């Protein structure tokens, strides 16, 4: 790297559920320590990526218009083939001419996104790049990896003036099979031979690449840790105890493609050298940084989350399903209603009446104003905060809905009114302050459907302290 690109701001997102690793292992006759983060049924790598990206843009004081490209790394894009990148751009309000790429294929994808974005900034093809790494792997049932498998996301704003300057990178590639998922497989398989992987692949390659970065002794390290022990082995080889990624693994578990970037977040909070190394899919890559000033949005990860059972996790991941067929519902997500509706649902658009000022939502079903009936409406982006006017908690619903499900009528700060689902049925009351967050509403006929839900501001799941 020529030194003309650096991280200017960052953001983090964690899913709302936590499960004790021991609950998972106990079901298979084993034991484990700690907890891992898991997506609730309405969360996935896209909603996590949205949350982290919004946090990074806020930290950097950037509007969506300022972003020239989005590079997103995940092993679990919501569409294995399809409009994943376009959906995320729409939800973030990025321009329709935005550049970038979706990188996938292994846990290496997060660093792939970082380096591709850095190259684009250095080359001058974008001025400001948004990098997001997010993941929520679905582990094979009964694998040792299952109790380690977490979820999370990290996002960086890259620019020529970013204070965490990219100094160098190094990579090593080898055609070996370790953690993988076949083309038509649902779940990720575990290492096929733990000792072979450790002795011949992981430890030598990660150590070699880390040393190639030639960082000084006081560097902080984000190191991969696929089994809870290998990270420490590499740290000993490097002669360091400054492992900034330890807390991310401890709090969230192994977050796949997001892990190397999440592990860097605490190191970006103070000045000095830092390095991040990733292993995934036979490739090992390291990136060296010189943090010239604390980065906005960086800090220690906070422990928030609702504790759930192993059965909840299995159901949310689609690994525990009721017998019989669920009733097919709703509109086909490939149909015209979604072509019209997706931009305005994911962009949270309304139409403001030129005559009376009332906002009608969404625009496609409101050619006339709901306030005065007037025909002149101008498109507006809705406010993202408001208060609860009234609500219900639905207890009687067919699968795939899960009760209790709260629905809230909210008065947004700009005067618009919305009725949407609430993420927290226990925290809702009239007058409560809420914010809107992107969630996965359903998987309809195999297709994810996204929209905004309310979340009580006082329960805000801010993942950094």
């Amino acid at each position, binding site marked *: 790297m020529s030194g003309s690109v650096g991280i200017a701001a960052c953001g983090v997102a964690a899913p709302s559920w936590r499960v004790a690793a021991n609950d998972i292992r106990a079901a298979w006759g084993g034991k484990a320590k700690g907890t891992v983060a898991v997506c609730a049924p309405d969360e996935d790598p896209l909603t996590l990526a949205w949350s982290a990206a919004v946090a990074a843009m806020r930290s950097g004081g950037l509007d969506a218009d300022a972003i020239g490209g989005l590079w997103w790394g995940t092993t679990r894009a919501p569409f294995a083939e399809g409009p994943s990148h376009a959906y995320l751009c729409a939800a973030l309000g990025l321009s329709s001419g935005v550049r970038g790429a979706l990188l996938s294929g292994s846990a290496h994808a997060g660093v792939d996104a970082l380096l591709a974005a850095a190259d684009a900034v250095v080359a001058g093809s974008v001025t400001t790049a948004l990098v997001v790494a997010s993941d929520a792997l679905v582990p094979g049932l009964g694998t040792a990896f299952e109790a380690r498998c977490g979820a999370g996301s990290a996002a960086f704003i890259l620019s020529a003036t970013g204070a965490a300057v990219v100094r160098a990178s190094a990579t090593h590639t080898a055609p070996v099979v370790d953690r993988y998922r076949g083309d038509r497989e649902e779940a990720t398989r575990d290492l096929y031979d733990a000792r072979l992987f450790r002795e011949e692949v992981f430890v030598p390659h990660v150590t070699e690449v880390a040393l190639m970065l030639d960082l000084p002794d006081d560097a902080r390290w984000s190191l991969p840790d696929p089994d809870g022990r290998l990270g420490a082995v590499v740290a000993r080889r490097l002669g360091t105890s400054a492992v900034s990624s330890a807390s991310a693994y401890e709090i969230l578990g192994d977050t796949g493609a997001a892990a190397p970037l999440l592990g860097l977040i605490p190191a970006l909070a103070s000045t000095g050298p830092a390095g991040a190394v990733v292993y995934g899919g036979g490739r090992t890559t390291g990136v060296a940084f010189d943090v010239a000033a604390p980065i906005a949005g960086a800090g220690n990860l906070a422990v928030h989350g609702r504790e759930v059972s192993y059965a909840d996790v299995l159901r949310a991941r689609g690994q525990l399903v009721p017998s019989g067929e669920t*009733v097919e*519902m*709703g*509109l086909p*997500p490939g149909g015209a*209603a*979604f072509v019209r*509706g997706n931009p305005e*649902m994911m962009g949270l658009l309304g139409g403001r009446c030129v005559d009376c000022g009332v906002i*009608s*939502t*969404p625009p496609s*079903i409101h050619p006339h104003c*709901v306030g005065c009936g007037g025909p002149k409406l101008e498109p507006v982006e809705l406010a993202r905060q408001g208060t609860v*006017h*009234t*609500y*219900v*908690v*639905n*207890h*009687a*619903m*067919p699968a795939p*809905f899960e009760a*209790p*499900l709260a*629905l809230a*009528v909210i008065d947004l700060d700009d005067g618009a*009114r*919305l*009725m*949407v*689902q609430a993420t927290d049925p226990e925290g809702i009351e*009239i007058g409560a302050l809420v914010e809107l967050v992107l969630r996965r*509403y*359903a998987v*309809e006929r195999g297709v994810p*459907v996204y*929209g*905004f839900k309310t979340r009580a501001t006082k329960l805000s799941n801010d993942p950094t302290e």
Partner: protein
Amino acid sequence: MWNRVAVVGAGLIKFGELFDQSYEQMAAGAFKAASEAVDHDFDPSLIDAAFVATQRGTLWGQEGVGGNTVPSAIGLSGIPCTRIENACPSGSDAFRVGAMAVASGVHDVVLVIGVEKMRDKSTEEGLLARAAAGHPIYTRGETAPVLFAPFATRHMHEFGTTREMLAAVAVKNHHNGALDPYAHFQDEVTLEQVLASPPVCHPLHLLDCCPQTDGAAAAILVPADRAHEFTDKPVYVAGFGVATDHPYLHEKSTFVGLPATVAASQRAYDMAGLGPADIDMAEVHDCFTITEILDIEDLGFVEKGKGGRAVLDGETALDGRIPINTSGGLLAKGHPIGATGVAQITECWWQLREEAGDRQVALRNGVALQHNVGGRGSGVSVVNILTRNLA
């Protein structure tokens, strides 16, 4: 000025889960009941037009119900017949359209019939599947109780309405239903049973909700000046009104009332030259307990915010100041959607003819009101007013 219209026959079949009857058999039963209720021998071939209310035919296993299904089922194939679909007020709107057909002078003897099969499909496939109908996001999770429960939450917040007040509606209507041989439910419930029933959609519990019911009801309309050919005790149409409001809940201007009900009733009162104080009894839309509280306020029987207290104090009981839902209402009699409005008309007809048996209320003015509200966002309301007086 419109030609006045008389109701000379009305009737229904016993409501319930009628697994043993087809849509067509229910229609034939209701037609027979209305025909036999005509005082003088009635010749069905006199019927020169029919209006059929069926709301959910295409969802409830009656794919493609058109105007021809019912005439064929009642032995009158060939007559002009139109299906009316206007959400929960489908039956009351079919009555209004039938009355207009007679008032216009185009038709003489008109059959209005409501028929609904709610239970040929499972709950999951029927009512609950609407949880994902409509807009992809803004209505997702919106089962039927979600259309009314937010009004309960807000009414409780603004006026101090309590779950006991809601429950008092169910207790009253189940009491009335136990006196109505046509009601789906024939048992009384206690306040404690209503309060202890399982939650369906907070703050509404199971006994705050009407059941899913199959049923059919019919009425026969003729020009007022021919009424005495058919009957000794005619009941006349005094007025009617329809109103609409925005279809989505987030478009509502208020969550403590239903503006469509206010506007529909004002139009009906104006047409009849009457006001709420002139009404002796009313059959109103009580799909949920909160709905009846909103109704009696929006129809002008009780001051806004005091509906719950009025029910708890017995003002709407059979012997109260303004008896409401003497038939048991949707809560106890049932809510076969297309049939509901026509069955309410039948109850008003019986009350005005003083044929309601143990449910008979004292008549002061000989005027009764019938009301439905529904559809997405409770955005459609119909009010019909009946009278014994041809003033």
